[in-house]
């Protein structure tokens, strides 16, 4: 579903990502782990079209999307849950969700997905009229997930979903991601919390200083002593 080949991205003059190639198959949950600053978010943003690659190709459903604007990709089914949630702070919860479904024209489908999102996070229904910035961090993350859900993604890009969340909430958001995966959504998950990510992923890649250093099934990576030492806390 997603094929990245030899991707190089610069931030200003410095190289953020160099020569990365990876694939995410249809229906797969693939995770990309690595430390802060390794270039994970950059890859995700480049897939979304928020950053221009210096080199390399990005193919989505067999089509080269490198030159397409982000909203075109979004309308093709690529949806992102951005790092730091980035909900719209001055819009209400419901308005945020309506932005999620912005590109969709099937009213009934949207209504159904909205119900689904509310069912997944009941608190959002209670707070539907509340302004985004008044939500707590956890609620904001739920909103960000729900916003992506109502977009009915084909490929979901998830960026650091556990960042800044209490453990119980980390579990909850990861469960939500798993649920989406089970429902058939292809997921590309970028995560610092390697343990959690590798628990739910099918396959994984390890990124360090902008380069891929390891890849394999989640189980293989979990067992890898190098990964254990660096990312799983011994």
């Amino acid at each position, binding site marked *: 579903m997603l094929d990245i080949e030899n991707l190089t991205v610069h931030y200003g003059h410095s190289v953020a990502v160099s020569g990365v190639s990876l694939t995410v198959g249809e229906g797969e949950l693939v995770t990309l782990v690595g430390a802060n600053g390794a270039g994970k978010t950059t890859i995700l943003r480049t897939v*979304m*079209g*928020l950053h221009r690659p210096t080199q390399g190709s990005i193919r989505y459903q067999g089509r080269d999307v490198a030159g397409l*604007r*982000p*909203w075109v990709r*979004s*309308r093709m089914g690529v*949806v*992102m849950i*951005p790092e730091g949630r*980035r909900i*719209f*702070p*001055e*819009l209400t919860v419901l*308005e945020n969700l*309506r*932005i*999620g479904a*912005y*590109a969709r024209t099937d009213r009934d489908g949207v209504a159904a997905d909205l119900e689904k999102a509310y069912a997944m996070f009941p608190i959002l229904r209670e707070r539907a009229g509340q302004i985004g910035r008044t939500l707590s961090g956890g609620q904001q993350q739920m909103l960000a997930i729900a*916003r992506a859900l109502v*977009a009915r993604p084909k490929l979901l890009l998830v960026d650091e979903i556990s960042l800044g969340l209490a453990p119980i909430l980390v579990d909850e958001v990861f469960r939500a991601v798993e649920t989406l995966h089970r429902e058939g959504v292809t997921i590309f998950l970028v995560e610092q919390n390697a343990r959690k990510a590798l628990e739910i992923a099918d396959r994984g890649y390890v990124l360090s200083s902008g380069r891929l250093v390891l890849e394999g099934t989640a189980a293989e990576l979990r067992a890898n002593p190098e990964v254990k030492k660096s990312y799983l806390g011994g």
Partner: protein
Amino acid sequence: MVVQQIANGVVLGSLYALVALGLTLVYGVLRILHVAHAGVFVLGAYVGVLVYLPTGSLALAIVSAAVVCSLAGLIMYRFLYRPVLGRPPLVPLIISIGAFMFLEDLYRLVMGPYIKSLPVTIRAAGFETAAVRLTGYQLFIVAAAAGLLLGLWWLMRGTRLGLAWRASAQDLETAAAHGINTDVIIGVCFVIGSAIAAVAGVMVGGYYNQVYPSMGSVPAYKALAVIVLGGMGSVPGTVIAGLALGLAETLTMVWVGTFLPRDAIAFLVLILMLLVKPTGLLGRAS
């Protein structure tokens, strides 16, 4: 006389608000100080003159000015601002000032340096009581301003486009990632802002019966004061600031006297206010 002076202030403030609105819309989404917006305002006034004099139709003059200015606004965005998005704010600011200088001189060369008259007549009756007297044209200005602002309010709050617009103003990138065509949104900002400036240009030109190349000089920079006072990017804030400035200028001129020209008063208030609240009247610290 107090009521009359307040009415005078409201008329003046409505004009300020109309000129500054385009600036606010652009700043809201792009964080660019669009000084050349005043050039669009003057263009609107000139189109008004060119259409009104032969046809005698104010409606036609306003519509054509709006169309021409919308186009001009779009062209400015495409060729002046889009290439430098993401550069430090001084770059688009200087481009904007350069473009404004260019436009002022272009108008002088094409339309001549002389003041043109735009003798608009309004059939609407004036309004006169013992306390207050407003001419038909003044009523028309206030009504048009109120109508445009309400329309804009409805657009922003009551439509899908408005929702996408507000989302883009808060986070352009995330909006784009959620399927909002931000190019269109930015374009709409320039179109609507420029169209409102065009309307303001025709109305100001008609109200004072003067259209000339440098009529944008003072609005160009005073509008900056207005949008800062209103908290940059806030539409209701801009309207309130415009009205407040119109009233403040009118009232100080009458009761305090002209200890400083009104433009300086606007900036003095601005500087003092910024020292107290560095993010503007309705601005919120990020």
